[in-house]
């Protein structure tokens, strides 16, 4: 089962990201087109449904929800797609080849666990080995913390995060030197993208909004322009080259935002809800990005040896 490890700094929106990924699945999996289907496993339902209810009521995940949720396991399938020619020909069919099963793992203590491993501690914790065995990594970057070239980044947060991610990649490299999967798919998710500072966009010489999801080369340029200078160590690590049998695929980029209603005195900020095409409600979020991300991950899943 391919594993997608979600890493992110404190308050980068990891739990919200996982919740919105589930919201996108529920909505795409119940729409009229019936082109996409997903199934959440029994082990994941308790926590993920609580998170779903919270987001659909306009609330961000509270500390209890964050504490409770560790992972989500799902089967994802697209109608008429698969590895064989026959499954592509049967455009109306749901062939077993069209289904990929994923385990999304929320990483919590990137710094502590990884640095322990890098300083020689043995991996007694099964969770850390799961994280190091990930087939894909969703690296969440809080867009509001991105700095402009030459400017001291706000509180140095992004610099510290760069060091932590680099250490994580080094840990993966060392872990995989013992054998295991040889290819890792990095996926950068720029969270809170609606809050990115205009001067960051100007300095990177990019438009306000990213190119469409299907224009992968343009998106890669856009993403690299924004992140390259903020996460230099991470990008150096991901660059092609000999890494002891480990290969990082070319990173992909997705952009996440969720509109909020301003917090009033004594009341925390709320997620703004909007009408869906079917006249229900959903969080006002970058749905297309999440749908594109699911499709990308499904592709990774079908390419990963079972």
């Amino acid at each position: 089962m391919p594993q997608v490890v979600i890493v992110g700094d404190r308050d980068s929106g990891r739990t919200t990201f996982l919740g919105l990924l589930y919201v996108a699945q529920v909505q795409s999996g119940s729409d009229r087109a019936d082109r996409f289907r997903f199934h959440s496993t029994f082990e994941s339902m308790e926590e993920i449904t609580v998170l779903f209810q919270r987001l659909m009521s306009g609330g961000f995940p509270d500390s209890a929800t964050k504490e409770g949720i560790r992972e989500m396991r799902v089967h994802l399938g697209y109608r008429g797609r698969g590895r064989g020619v026959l499954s592509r020909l049967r455009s109306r069919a749901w062939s077993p080849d069209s289904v990929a099963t994923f385990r999304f793992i929320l990483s919590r203590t990137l710094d502590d666990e990884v640095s322990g491993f890098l300083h020689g501690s043995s991996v007694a914790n099964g969770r850390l080995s799961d994280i190091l065995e990930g087939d894909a990594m969703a690296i969440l970057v809080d867009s509001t913390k991105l700095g402009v070239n030459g400017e001291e980044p706000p509180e140095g947060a992004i610099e510290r995060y760069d060091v932590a991610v680099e250490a994580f990649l080094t840990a993966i490299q060392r872990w995989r030197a013992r054998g295991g999967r040889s290819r890792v798919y990095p996926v950068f998710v720029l969270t809170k993208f609606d809050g990115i500072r205009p001067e960051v966009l100007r300095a990177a010489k990019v438009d306000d909004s990213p190119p469409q999801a299907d224009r992968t080369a343009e998106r890669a340029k856009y993403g690299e322009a924004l992140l390259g200078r903020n996460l230099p160590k991470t990008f150096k690590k991901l660059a092609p080259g000999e890494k002891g049998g480990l290969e990082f695929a070319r990173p992909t980029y997705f952009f996440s935002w969720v509109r909020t209603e301003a917090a009033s005195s004594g009341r925390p900020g709320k997620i703004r809800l909007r009408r869906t095409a079917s006249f229900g409600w959903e969080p006002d979020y970058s749905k297309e990005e999440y749908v594109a991300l699911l499709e990308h991950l499904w592709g990774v899943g079908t390419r990963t040896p079972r």
Partner: protein
Amino acid sequence: MPCALLGDRASGKTTFLGLLYSAQVKYGTGVQDDFRFHAPLQSLNVMSAVYEGMKDGRFPSATLKEEITELGFIFGYLRKVVGKLPYYIRKQNWARPFSTLRFSAYDVSGEDIEEFIESGIASRPLIQQLLKSVVVVVLVDCSKMTTEIDTPAYKKMLRYDSTVAKLLVSFQTYKKQEYERLKESGVKPEPPVIYPAFVLSKFDNLRDDVLARLGLHQGFPQDKKARREYAEALLRVFVPQTLSQIRGGKVAGVNMDKAEYFLSWVRTETQEGMDPVGQPRIVRTGFRPEGGGEPDFAYDEYVHFIEHFRHIAHKIPDEILEAEKFQAEAAVRTA
């Protein structure tokens, strides 16, 4: 074949069962005689009390919890081929003239079910029996359907959606585990199938503005495809997780694609368009040659519901029949 009924608190489970019983009595005493039903004594006592109350214009006050933990009927459908045989052959037991379906409503909590799947240990034997169900009937209370997000009804529906989605995943997981277990033991089982049936209960309480917003007309269509589209338009908005997990069964290896949709309503007395004070009373039909003094309810939908199970009863996988036979023999031995 076992069949389970899932419904939220106050979603109208007992009323649904009372109306189903009422429809069974009427339909089972028709001239055609191709549908029969039987109820165990305990269930019959409860249902006849509910039925009597309804004939007296009262909604049932007793919930399943207060009565018994399982309330069941056995539906019998005359097999097509047998129906064409001469009467004296048809009445022989060896001809197995009727396909049967055991319809049961259980009073068990979702937590008990989840605990059983996690640990393999059932706190009550009923849970395993429930999970063997091939037909899962889900009641969706239309009176709770609202598009106003800051209302308790909206939040209730969100919670209910999560509960049903979790239960459906529990059923799917159990079926998949059983399938794998049988395969490992050398048996070649049929791929697991669950037949979901959605009953849109209290349909007469569905607000017009909700229908208007969704672009739906007031009457429920007759055509099968149109019924599905109509019902799914409601489920998509109010129980999207449930709908997505029903569809998702296919990618998890437990086909739930044969979902059917029904509605339920029972007419209540109003005084010149005003809401009644206290518990509403059921309107009863006048006396006619085919019967009378019955609750005025969606009888045709209930007949449709009963008939839907005819097709399923004829399609029961062999291993389920075998398991039921074995269970019945074991029960006789224990007695």
